[in-house]
Structure formats: structure tokens, C-alpha cells
């Protein structure tokens, strides 16, 4: 039995249950991430000028190893829906995998429900764009030009095809905030997208959009674990350097 792994999961789970109680009062203090600041503004602007926000969730199944990226994308979708549900053009979500497309519809509906505007929910705003990464990209690209979209977020597992989406956004004068859990695709998005989230910033996005104390608490846990890993790496290097291990 892997006791260290189990202990780590139990510790993090316990912290996740306890920390939100301390974070309930006041807004969480978060370091500024320019891409998310621009996205936050774009969400507000889209309501004011009656344009639409597009959220791409990627094409990875929740059963696959990149499922967590899709969950983070659903978190972004929920926050975007809450904030734009009263606008003239409802937000739209596209996925490259069937189960994810169904979850996107469910998340959109929950977002409307949470602000008491479920009657404005349109099921067709959550859709499957294609069944393979490139067909999904091909299905999403025309939406940037045809659906009155002012800003688009890619939050999930995207491969290099995300550069094609970024190019379509550029041509349609759409602000694209790109994030993926695939490092080569992050490099492509760095070059092609208007704004890009690198590494774990994808998982922090819902907290920056106001997802609540549980999301802020998970950022604290990530920081704590990151420092533990840094200490372990530096100590290990020092011990190895001095020939102790």
C-alpha cells in the first residue's frame, strides 16, 4: 500500500474541507495574472456590448489522464455563465468529446440556475464540435466569426490544433485566452494566442473568476505543496552534493 500517496491525498482533502472556512470572509488575495485580468474584463464587456463568450473545453475524455483539465474548463464555463447569463447573447461552450459536451450543457444550465435565470438557458449553446482534435477545431473556427463572439477561452486539453483556433480568433478580432495542459501546445499558444495561461494557471482560472472559497483554498494547498517540493528538491541536491546520500 502506498502510504505516502494516501497520506498526501488525505491531508490535501482535509485541508480542502477546512481552509474554505477561513477564506469565507473577504475576497481572496491572488497574484495578478494578466491573461485572467483581461478575461475578467472581457466577460464584463461582453455583457455590456451584447456579444458572446465562447468557451472551448478540449477533446479529452474525463476518464483519460487529462480529465482534470476539462474539469477546470467546466469551472471556467460555470463562472462565465453566472456572470454573462443576463446578457443579450448567452455564452457558448464547445467540446471535442461527447460526454464533455453533455457536461457542458449541464454546467451551462447550472450556471443559469445559480443566478435564478434558468428560463434563459438554451441547450444548443453547449455543443459537440467534432470527434477528433482537428475536426473539433474545424467545427469551432467558424463560430468565432459567425456567432458574434467577442472573447474566447480555451480551457481544457488542446493539442497543437489550438494554434488554428488562435489564428481564427485573430482574424475574427476575438480576444483569445488560451490554456491547455499539453506543454507543446502551450508553446504554440504562446506564439499564436492573444493571451496565454502557462502551466497550473489553467487550474487557477476559476478562482480568479470568482468561483468561491474552495477554489481559493485549493490554490493555497497548491502553494503549500509546491514549497514542500522545492524544499525536497533543494535538500536532495544539497545532500547529494555533500555526498551524504
Amino acid at each position, binding site marked *: *500500500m*502506498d502510504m505516502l*500517496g*494516501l497520506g498526501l*491525498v488525505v491531508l*490535501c*482533502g482535509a485541508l*480542502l*474541507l477546512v481552509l474554505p472556512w477561513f477564506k469565507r470572509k473577504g475576497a481572496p488575495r491572488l497574484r495578478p495574472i494578466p491573461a485572467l485580468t483581461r478575461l475578467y474584463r472581457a466577460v464584463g464587456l461582453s455583457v455590456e456590448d451584447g456579444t458572446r463568450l465562447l468557451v472551448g473545453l478540449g477533446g479529452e*475524455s474525463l*476518464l483519460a489522464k487529462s480529465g*482534470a*483539465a476539462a*474539469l477546470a474548463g*467546466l*469551472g471556467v464555463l460555470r463562472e462565465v455563465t453566472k456572470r454573462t447569463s443576463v446578457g443579450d447573447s448567452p455564452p457558448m461552450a464547445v467540446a471535442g*468529446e*461527447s*460526454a464533455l459536451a*453533455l*457536461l457542458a*450543457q*449541464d*454546467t451551462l444550465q*447550472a450556471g443559469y440556475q445559480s443566478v435564478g435565470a434558468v428560463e434563459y438557458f438554451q441547450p*444548443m449553446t453547449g*455543443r*459537440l464540435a467534432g*470527434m*477528433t482534435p*482537428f475536426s473539433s477545431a474545424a467545427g469551432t473556427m*467558424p463560430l468565432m466569426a*459567425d456567432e458574434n463572439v467577442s472573447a474566447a477561452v480555451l480551457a481544457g486539453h488542446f493539442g497543437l*490544433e489550438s*494554434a*488554428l483556433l488562435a*489564428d481564427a480568433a*485573430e482574424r475574427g478580432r476575438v480576444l483569445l485566452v488560451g490554456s491547455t*495542459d499539453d*506543454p507543446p501546445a*502551450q508553446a*504554440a499558444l*504562446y*506564439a*499564436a494566442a*492573444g493571451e496565454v495561461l*502557462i*502551466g*497550473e494557471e*489553467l*487550474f487557477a482560472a476559476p478562482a480568479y473568476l470568482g*468561483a468561491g472559497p*474552495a*477554489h481559493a483554498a*485549493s490554490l493555497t*494547498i*497548491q502553494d503549500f*505543496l*509546491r514549497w514542500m*517540493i522545492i524544499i525536497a528538491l533543494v535538500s536532495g541536491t544539497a545532500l547529494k552534493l555533500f555526498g551524504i546520500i
Partner: protein
Amino acid sequence: MQIVALVLAVGTGMLILVGYFVPAFAPVQSVLLRWAIILSGAAAVLGVFNLVLVHANKISAREKGSGYSGVLIIGLFATFVFGLAIGPSHPGMRLLISAVVIPVESTLMALLAVTLLYASVRLLRRRGNAMTWVFIGTTVLMLVASATLPFGEIGALTNFLHPWLQHVLAMGGARGILIGMALGTLTTGLRVLVGADRPYGVK
């Protein structure tokens, strides 16, 4: 109903997680994962139904590009009927994949090379800071070091700079990014597991 969904999701998630650490729970984990795969298959059918509905709506509303939607629906039904009639392993069905789907996707992949080159140029205009120059400089350096040059290899570049960039800087950076994403994955999964984040639509 929402409480039932929450209890089911949290309970199932906990059982699957425990299955990774306690061998006695591994058979339960295996059964639950098999159920998830079956449900995922059913979702695939619903997803295709959603795709057809979206494009049928586009056609009925005579939206811009509805001709392409028509091609998609005809193609989808033709492939479905063809597949039912002759079976998915028939050479005709394989030809459909190798002669239509793969070439189209390869074309998009080729387009990607041009798109990325153009994006790199645009990057200088959009974000002309020091990091952009480092990014583009590194890309050019790696390309030159990997390419077969007409005048042979550049010794210092091929033998020292390229491996050092690839195995020290790039590998170190990639590992840092991967550790960060692993931590994000852990907390995201745990949020769902303790019911703090509910992607299954419960308020």
C-alpha cells in the same frame, strides 16, 4: 435529487480512489470504471445526436455556412448506413478513413506549420518584449541545430548548445510546468471528490 447525485458522485469517486491504495478495493474500482466506459459510449451517441441537431437547426434557419452543415449531415448518415451495411472492418470503410479523414486532418496539420510561422511574426508586433525575443531566438536555434545544413554541422551548436538547451533548460522548464500541473490536477480532483466542485450540474 441533487443530493442523490452528489452522494453518488462523491461515493463513486471515493471508492475508485481507495481502489488505487487498498488492493482489496481494486475489483470494485474495476467494475465502476467499466460502468463509466459504458456510460461514456452511451454519451457518444447523444453527442452525435447533439451534433446533428445543431447543424439541422443551422440548415432550417438558413444560417451562413448552412451548406457545409448539409454536407456534414449527409456525410454522417452515409457513413453510418454504409458502416451498418458492410461493417467497420470492411476495406471500403477503411478506405473512407484513409482517403477522406486522414488526408483532411493531415492538410490541417500542414496548415498549422504556416499558421505557427505567421504567428511567430505576429508575436513580435503584439508582445515585443525580451521574452518574445528569447522565444523566437530559441526556436530558430533549435531549428538550425536540428536541420541538415548544406555546409555540414556547426560543431558548437550541434554538440554543445543544442543538447544543453534541450536537456537542461527545456527539460527543467518542462518538469517545472508538469509538477505545477500535477498539483493543479490533484487539487481539482479532490475538489470534485469532496463535493466542493460539482461539474455534474448540481447548484
